[in-house]
């Protein structure tokens, strides 16, 4: 089925050049041909929400921030919605020293500053908390206790329960703020366009929507907190975000603004839950970074409810 989808995408884009598969996961398939990239979106996405997200990516207010889709070549292929994009050059996975952390912060701040009222709506909710909840549900509903760590799974679930409702996508589903957010921001979501030395753009609007902007800082924040990335990289991202006037955190030079704490905990739990599910289902074994994430979950579980963030506890009254 997936092989057929890859073939169909390659067929569609053949005029543009020799096709190459960029991504082929159970939920997402991406094929490049020359300067054109075709993406088959996850079947679980709501078509109306996806259409709204694609309209935002194409809107002039997002020029220079989000990569804009190409016209044409969109529609359903084998029951999946396919969109068409210009090719951009991704961050090199083997050169972490050259990663554009500051530019990522800058772009994120500009995205958050977009006036939501001037965009074609209605916009869906930013899907970050829903995706984290899906990872935790996958862990909770594993048919057998995840090997080699059944007790660890219980700690991950307990860490999750200590998060405020909004970060768990639980009722009420209202996120603290309603700004334009990416929803799944990480360094893999940046490309240079044009590919040869062009400016960086954000890609992948599948989780884009209105919500709490601090969520978009959560992945690098969690990476810094758990020691997966050097402090200097998180500092560069945060400084880039603040220098561009990003509204998710208060101005300052502290490395752990209170606003990022709850989202960073949630994403740490999400990554740990996914790692346990992958290990239990034979996708991949746990590695050193997973053990760092699991240890952090144990400490989050031991700390109790996350409330000192100014966003998770309902704010001042």
């Amino acid at each position, binding site marked *: 089925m997936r092989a057929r989808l890859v073939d169909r995408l390659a067929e569609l884009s053949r005029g543009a050049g020799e096709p190459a598969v960029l991504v082929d996961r159970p939920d997402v398939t991406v094929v490049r041909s020359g300067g054109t990239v075709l993406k088959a979106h996850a079947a679980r996405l709501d078509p109306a929400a996806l259409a709204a997200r694609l309209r935002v990516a194409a809107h002039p207010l997002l020029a220079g921030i989000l990569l804009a889709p190409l016209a044409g070549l969109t529609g359903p292929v084998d029951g999946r919605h396919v969109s068409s994009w210009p090719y951009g050059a991704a961050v090199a996975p083997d050169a972490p020293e050259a990663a554009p952390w500051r530019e990522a912060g800058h772009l994120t701040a500009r995205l958050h500053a977009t006036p939501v009222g001037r965009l074609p709506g209605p916009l869906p909710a930013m899907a970050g908390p829903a995706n984290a909840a899906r990872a935790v549900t996958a862990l909770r509903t594993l048919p057998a206790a995840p090997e080699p760590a059944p007790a660890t799974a219980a700690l991950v679930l307990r860490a999750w329960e200590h998060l405020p409702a909004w970060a768990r996508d639980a009722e009420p589903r209202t996120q603290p703020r309603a700004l334009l957010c990416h929803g799944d921001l990480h360094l*893999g979501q940046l490309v240079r366009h044009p590919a040869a030395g062009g400016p960086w753009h954000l890609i992948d609007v599948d989780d884009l929507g209105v919500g709490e902007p601090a969520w978009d800082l959560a992945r690098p924040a969690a990476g810094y907190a758990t*020691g997966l990335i050097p402090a200097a990289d998180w500092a560069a991202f945060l400084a880039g975000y603040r220098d561009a006037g990003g*509204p998710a955190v208060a101005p300052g030079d502290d490395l*752990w603004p209170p606003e990022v704490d709850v989202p960073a905990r949630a994403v740490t739990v999400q990554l740990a839950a996914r790692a346990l599910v992958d290990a239990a289902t034979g996708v991949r074994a746990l590695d050193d970074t997973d053990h760092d994430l699991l240890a*952090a979950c144990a400490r989050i579980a031991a700390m109790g409810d996350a409330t000192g963030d100014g966003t998770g506890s309902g704010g001042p009254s």
Partner: protein
Amino acid sequence: MQCPKCRAPMQTYNRNGVQIEQCSGCRGIFLDYGELETLTRLEAQWAQQAPPPPQGYPQQQAPGWGGGHHGGHGHYGRRKGGFSRMLFSS
């Protein structure tokens, strides 16, 4: 009430008896007539009766739950796999 600048909902807070409206989106603050003067007066009173400068909120540099080895490590020597966790959707 909606913020006239960015249209996000406004929330009302009470600060020392002064009602202020803050936008939940852009964090802009709106004051009714006379409220700025009231706040300025309160601030002046507070400054007079509090000689040592306030500590404010202590700035935090890393969360207690993280366990990362902060400071000193300016490279990826310790965790080769850490960077790749920053590159892919989960």
